[in-house]
């Protein structure tokens, strides 16, 4: 039997690591992957609370978060491909103005 607070601490640590990766990495694909890491941390918190409260709405919401993350990944990767095609770089430090 694992206490709920263990899962919540792990979810907080994962989310924090996602934020650190989002801030410190320069490749736009790695930044996008850190967003997925943050979403996974939130999913873990949802499942833990759903287990604690004995309700299934938490797991239904996890289902929806995964679906929305899939849709967002598709569109976001299309945008990244466009950025690479138009700017020639994947480094966010070089993509810093709307005009090129």
């Amino acid at each position, binding site marked *: *039997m*694992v*206490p*709920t*607070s*263990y*899962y*919540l*601490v*792990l979810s*907080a*640590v*994962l989310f*924090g*690591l996602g*934020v*650190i*990766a989002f*801030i*410190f*990495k320069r*490749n736009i*694909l*790695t930044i996008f*992957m*850190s967003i*997925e*890491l943050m979403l*996974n941390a939130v*999913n*873990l918190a949802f*499942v*833990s609370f*759903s*287990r*604690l409260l*004995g309700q*299934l*709405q938490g*797991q*239904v919401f*996890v*289902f*929806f978060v*995964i*679906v*929305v*993350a*899939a*849709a967002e990944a*598709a*569109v976001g*990767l*299309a945008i*990244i*491909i*466009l950025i*690479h095609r138009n700017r020639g770089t*994947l480094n966010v*430090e070089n993509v810093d103005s709307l005009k090129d």
Partner: protein
Amino acid sequence: MITPQIAMFLILAAVVVAGALSLIVQRHPIHSALSLIVVMVALAGLYLLQGAEFVAAVQIIVYAGAIMVLFIFVIMLLNAGEEERSNVSRLARFVGVPLGIAFLVEVAYWIGRATAHLGTPPEEMVSTRELSSLLFREFVFPFELTSFLILIALLGALVLARREESD
């Protein structure tokens, strides 16, 4: 006292944190993507440990099996190389990373203290039948909306990544 469940949790949590740290530390995005796959599979194990078998299966099939494969396709398609040395000042990195880690440790500590009173729920498998009856009765409208959302995302990605036809 280390029960088998707590031991399993500690092993999976160690794999998860190691994968997340590897995502941050690795320089080539393909290594970060593979580390993220490790994180997702270990998280699916954690969901199974809590009795959420449907969510664990969906996590592996959709998240690790489709979304991450899409990431790896794009990384290979764009020929993403290793990250170059950054022009950010050394001070930002030497002060920022320890501060970030200190903040992380503090947040984790306070969350651990604030939720320690929540206790330990019983471990039992959630039946997919209950979950699906909830999904298709109470939540049928958001469910249909997500299918619409996927259609919109599909069309959007197609239109965005299409090459201009010159005619």
